[in-house]
């Protein structure tokens, strides 16, 4: 993209500090928003076609509309920064390299919906991001952007960082709220939805980091402008994290609806030398795996569904011809087994069972009937759990079995895996070079 928005400050020296952020127009959008009324702002957000960027893709403006206007208890903003979906690493960059963009977005959101307190729920491993955010919040308080009577308005808003303790499940919105309340991150039954009963029993808005980071831009240039950088129902520039067997892994900004092929070739530098694309996961490991014949699919929620998978977080993992799909399925099942919170039997037991069956096939002890068994386990998990983590096991596992049936059968017939071990695959780029810079 010619002009960058979500990653504008990534490569600017001291872009994470308040003076640099302000010199690029930062916090002017807050001042503008403070002179707009709530209904107008919500309308702009609706017009922008901004969709939840944590992976679910719910229209942000509609979600905002669910927040009750009146409440006896103070209303809360919780920003989901528990980025943990394998293959996903975009929110981390916003928090580390442009924390004020997120903070300005939080304040505008709070103004719009009358939220009194905000918590940015960051996974505990991201200590660097936590420190950057806390320093930025301190700067914002000192300038009167946070606290009481913000910019002279009848508007109080306090913002804090809450570190998680290491649990993938806290990326699920109600698991996150449990973690905010100091409890084990075991998701709640819905309804009631967080907008009605959320953190501390009060109405609570839950939005992803990248979603909130879009808000200042929508205020500055309008919802229609944001929507114009995208396709139908999917508005605005987006951060795409590209990883796997490609030349230039990294985080890149491109419009919504860019094709997978463009991301791979124009941004990611193509596959590693000598590597042929075998498959890719479009938006985090809980999505169905895709075959190379879908490379022209557009990165939108509807278009990816039509192409046979889902957009998810928009962070793509590319896999080359040396990749064993049985091993991938087993590794992912292991991940979800490790991260299951243990509340629901189908998820807790099914994920462990699937892992054992997949490892057995990979290690040469598989039986032909195991393929039906795997699908049967998936059937019994899907839709039978409190939260979506159960589906996050069954959806990908099913896709590997269905799309690579022959490879599974081959493992069983030859009693072992024909693919090479995982190995170190180097590429020229390093993080500093690859962030947000298309060729």
């Amino acid at each position: 993209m010619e002009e960058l928005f979500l990653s504008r400050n990534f490569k600017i020296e001291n872009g994470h500090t308040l003076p640099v952020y302000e010199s690029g127009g930062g916090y002017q959008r807050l001042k503008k928003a403070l002179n707009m009324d709530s209904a107008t702002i919500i309308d702009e957000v609706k017009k922008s076609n901004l969709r939840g960027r944590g992976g679910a893709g719910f229209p942000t403006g509609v979600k905002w509309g669910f927040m009750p206007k009146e409440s006896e208890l103070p209303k809360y903003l919780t920003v989901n920064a528990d980025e943990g979906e394998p293959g996903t690493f975009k929110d981390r960059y916003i928090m580390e390299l442009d924390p004020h963009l997120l903070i300005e977005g939080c304040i505008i959101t709070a103004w719009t919906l009358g939220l009194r307190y905000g918590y940015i729920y960051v996974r505990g491993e991201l200590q660097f991001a936590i420190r950057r955010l806390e320093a930025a919040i301190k700067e914002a308080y000192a300038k009167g952007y946070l606290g009481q009577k913000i910019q002279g308005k009848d508007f109080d808003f306090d913002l804090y960082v809450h570190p998680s303790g290491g649990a993938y499940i806290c990326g699920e919105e109600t698991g996150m709220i449990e973690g905010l309340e100091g409890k084990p991150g075991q998701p709640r039954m819905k309804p009631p939805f967080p907008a009605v009963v959320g953190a501390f029993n009060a109405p609570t808005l839950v939005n992803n980091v990248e979603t909130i980071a879009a808000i200042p831009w929508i205020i500055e240039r309008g919802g229609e402008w944001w929507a114009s950088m995208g396709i139908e129902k999917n508005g605005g520039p987006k951060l795409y994290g590209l990883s796997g067997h490609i030349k230039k892994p990294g985080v890149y900004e491109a419009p919504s609806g860019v094709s997978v092929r463009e991301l791979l070739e124009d941004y990611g530098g193509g596959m590693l030398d000598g590597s042929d694309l075998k498959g890719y996961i479009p938006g985090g490991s809980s999505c169905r795996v895709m075959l190379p014949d879908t490379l022209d699919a557009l990165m939108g929620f509807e278009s990816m569904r039509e192409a046979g998978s889902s957009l998810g977080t928009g962070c793509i993992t590319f896999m080359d011809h040396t990749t064993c799909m049985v091993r991938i399925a087993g590794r992912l099942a292991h991940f979800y087994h490790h991260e299951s919170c243990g509340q629901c039997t189908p998820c807790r037991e099914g994920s462990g069972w699937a892992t054992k069956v997949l490892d057995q096939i990979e290690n040469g002890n598989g039986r032909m009937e195991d393929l039906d068994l795997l699908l049967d386990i998936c059937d019994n998990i899907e839709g039978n759990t409190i939260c979506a983590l159960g589906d996050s096991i069954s959806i990908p596992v099913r896709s590997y079995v269905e799309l690579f049936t022959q490879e599974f059968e081959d493992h069983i017939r030859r009693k072992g895996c024909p693919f090479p071990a995982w190995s170190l695959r180097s590429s020229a780029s390093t993080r500093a070079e690859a962030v947000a810079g298309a060729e």
Partner: protein
Amino acid sequence: MALAFSEESEAKFNELVSRYPNTRAALLPALFLAQEEFGWISVEVMDYLAERLELPPSQVLTTATFYTMYNKQPVGKCHVQVCTTLSCAFRGGYELLERFEDRLGIKRGESTPDGNWTLTEVECLASCGSAPMFQLTDSKGNMEYFEDLDSEEKFETVVKELESRLPNLPDPRDMH
């Protein structure tokens, strides 16, 4: 020995508690603070936090044992956590883990007897574009990502750097 926060931690603790409408919500950050101060989260530490936050000890126990970052056993001065989830596995995550095993003379999940190192295999750390990588947590509670470790030289440079830090780090086993 009765536990007590240092003056500095006490101030941080009070500030943490002030961020939330109730004391229980301060538990996750308070556990990190306690781990920094006391080296690891023993039952004694949990009881201390329960008392300070006015919570039943069982609530502290269920939370401390649910999350992976609270060490319920002492770890080494340098806790090396190597990611081996997909994107890292594709770029040498397992080899990095094996390099550490060879270099430190321990298997994943183990600590060196001198209390200097613990090696753990962990799941995705949101560093997929800079694989292979590991996270270091030292016994002062500092965390750091070491990324793009795709050669023996880079690995050696990092290990030597960490070795030079060891003399200045307390042994978590002696911290309470």
